[in-house]
C-alpha cells in the first residue's frame, strides 16, 4: 500500500499526539488514582428506606471518618432533590460520596468541582473527590428525570478545615 511521505509523517504526528494523551491518562490513573467512578455495587432502589445504609436517619455527612481519614457522605437522589438538601464539608479533605436513587435515573454534578456521577436505579454510585476551594456550591441533577428535573438541586457548603466540625449524628435534615 502506498502512502505519501508527508502523509506518513502526519500519521506519526497524529499517533504521537494520541499516545501523549493516552499516556497522560494512564500515568495519572496509576500515580494519582485519577479514574471516573467505577465501583459496581447493586442495591434495591425500591426498598432504600429499609436498607441499613440509606435509611433516612443514616443519610448525610457521616460522623465517623473512614480508616484512611476520608469523610463519607451518603445521599439519596429522588424526585426532586438530593437528600439531605444541605451538607457542610471541609475543604481539602478526601470525601467519599455514596448515592442511591429512590426512583429513576439521575445525574449529580457539583459545578466547578469534580464531583460527578450518574445514579442508576439498582446500583450504588460511589465517587471520591476533594474540594480545594471553600464556598457555597449548588448540587445539580443533570440527567432528565421527569418534568420537575429543572428544580432538582441541593446545596453544599465547603468550609475551611479549621472551621469544620464533624456532625454528631447522621440524618441531619435542614
Amino acid at each position, binding site marked *: *500500500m*502506498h*502512502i*505519501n511521505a508527508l*502523509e506518513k509523517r*502526519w*500519521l506519526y504526528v*497524529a*499517533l504521537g499526539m*494520541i499516545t501523549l*494523551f*493516552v499516556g497522560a*491518562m494512564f500515568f*495519572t*490513573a496509576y500515580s494519582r488514582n*485519577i*479514574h*471516573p*467512578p*467505577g*465501583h*459496581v*455495587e*447493586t*442495591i*434495591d*432502589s425500591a426498598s432504600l428506606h429499609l436498607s441499613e445504609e440509606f435509611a433516612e436517619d443514616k443519610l448525610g455527612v457521616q460522623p465517623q471518618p473512614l480508616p484512611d481519614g476520608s469523610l463519607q457522605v451518603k445521599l439519596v437522589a429522588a424526585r426532586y432533590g438530593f437528600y439531605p438538601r444541605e451538607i457542610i464539608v471541609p475543604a481539602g479533605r478526601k470525601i467519599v460520596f455514596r448515592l442511591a436513587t429512590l*426512583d*429513576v*435515573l439521575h*445525574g449529580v*454534578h457539583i*459545578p*466547578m468541582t*469534580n*464531583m*460527578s*456521577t*450518574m445514579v*442508576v*436505579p*439498582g*446500583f450504588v*454510585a*460511589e465517587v471520591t473527590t476533594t474540594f480545594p476551594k471553600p464556598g*457555597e456550591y*449548588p448540587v*445539580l*441533577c*443533570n*440527567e*432528565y*428525570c*421527569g*418534568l*420537575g*428535573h*429543572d*428544580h432538582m*438541586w441541593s446545596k453544599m457548603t465547603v468550609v475551611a478545615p479549621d472551621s469544620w466540625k464533624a456532625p454528631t449524628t447522621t440524618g441531619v435534615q435542614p
Partner: protein
Amino acid sequence: MIDATVKKLCLYHLWLAFGAFALACVFGEFQVLERSGLVGVIQSPAVYFASVSTHGVLMGFVLTTFFIMGFGYYTAVSSLQQPLWNPVLAWTSFGICAGGTVMAAIPLLLGKASVLYTFYPPVQANAFFYIGATLLVVGSWLWAVIMLVMLAQWKKAHPGQPVPLPMFATATNCVLWLWTSVGVALEAVFQLLPWALGLVDTIDVGLARTLFAWTLHPIVYFWLIPAYIALYCYVPKAAGGKLFSDELARLAFLLILLFGLPIGFHHLYMDPEQGHQWKFLHMVGTFAVAIPTLLTGFTVVASLELAGRKAGGKGLFGWIGTLPWRNPTVLAALLSLLMLLLGGFGGIVNASYAMNAMVHNTAWVPGHFHLIFGGTVVTLYLALGYRLWPRLCGKALYCNDLALTQIWGWFLGLVVMTTPWHVLGLLGQPRRISAVNYNSVLTLAWDPYELVMIFGGLILLASACLFVYILYKTQTAGAPQPEQPPDEGMLLEAAPTVPGWLNGFTAWNLVILLLMLVSYGYPIAQFFLIKTFDPTAWGY
C-alpha cells in the same frame, strides 16, 4: 442507470429527511427561546420536553436514516452502474421506516413520549413510541441488505477489481450499521418492548444503558460516513483537483468500522454499573478511532491544496484563496472541515476518561454534538442535497448564490449557537433542563450566553427554511436540464489494484466480532451473573 424508479425512491427518502430536518429546526428555536426564560408566556416543562424529544428523534434518527438510505440508493446505482436490486424490497423498507416514524411521532407530539431521543428507562413512554422506533431500525436493515447484495453482484461481475470508492464506503457504512444497531435492537426487543407492553413489570436499567451505549457511539459514524463520502468523492473534483489517495480513503473507512464499534463506554464513564478497567479499555479504543479522522483531514486538505495550486495558488497557504469558494460543495467542505476540527477536539475532551467528569451531562455535551453533527455532518448532507437534486429532478439548481448564502448562514448560526453552549457547560450548567430555577448566584453568569444562543438558533432556522425553499424551487421552477453530465463524484478513477484487505469485509467481520466480545462480553454478561434489582416503570 439512475432510472425513474430510483429517482422517485431517492426523492421520497430525501424529502422525508429534509422535511423532518426543517420541522426539527422550528422546535429547536422554540427550545432555545423557552430555556432562556426571557419569554415568560411560553414557559412549560411539558411542552419543552415533548419538543426536545421530538427534535432529537427527528434530527438524530429520521433526518439521518432517511438521508443515508436515499443517498445510498443513489450511490449504489451510480457508482456501480447497475440497476437497483429488488425495488419492491426498497419500497417495503421505505414503508416500514416511514410507518414506524409516524407511529413514534404521534405519541411524541402528543407529549406521551417525553423520554428524549435516548429513552433511558425506567421513565416510560407510550408503547407505540418504542414500536415505531424499532420499525425504523428494522426497515433500515432491509436497505443495508440491498446495498450489500448489489455489492456482491458487482464483485461477481468484476472479480479482483477495486470496488468503486463511493460504494466501498457505503458498504462499510452498512456493515457498521448492522453491527451498531444490534445494541439498541436487543434493548428494544428484549427489554423496552416487553416492559412497555406490560409483559414484564421491571427492567434492568444498567443493562439497558449498556446496550444503548453499544449503539450510541458507532451510530455517529453511521451518520458521519456519508459526509466523508462527500469529502473524499465529490469535493476534490469540485475544487478542480482529484483525490489525493484512494487507498488511504479506504483505510480511513475501514479503521472507522473497526475502532468505531467497540468503544461505547465513553458514554458511560460516570455510570456505576461498569468498572474502571472496561472504561479504560474503551477510552483507548476511542482515542484510536481519532486516527482515521486525523488521516481524513490530511487526505482531504491535501486534495484541496493540490487543486488550489493547480488554480495558481502560491506559497504555503496561497492555495486556500484560489479554491472555488463559490462552489457550494467546496464551500460546504471548507466550513465542515473547520467545524470538524473544533468539534473533534471537543470530542477528544469528552473521551478523556476521568476528565469527562468536567463536562458530563453539562451543556457542553449538546454544544459539542450540535457542532459536530449539525455542523460537520449536516452541512455536507445539505451540500449533497444540492448535488443530487438536479440529477433527481432533471432541473438546474435554482440559484447558486442562494445556496452559498444558505451554507454560510448555517455555519454562522452554528458558531453563534454552539460557542456559548460550550462555555455554559464549563460554567456547570446541566443539560436537559427546561429553565433555570436554581437559587444560586452561579446561574447569573449563564444568562448572557443563553441570549446569544437565541440569535444563533434564529439564523439556523432561517437557513434551514432557505434550504428547503431552494430544493423546492429547483424541483418546481428550475431550468429543465433532462440531460445531466455523468456524476464525476461517483465515477472516480480507482487505483489500478487495491489490496484484498481493503476491498472486502468477510475477514474484518471476524475481527469485529472479536473486538466486540472483548469490549462487551463480560460487561453485558455481568448483568446475568450478579444479582440485580430491577425497577418498575415510572412516568414523568
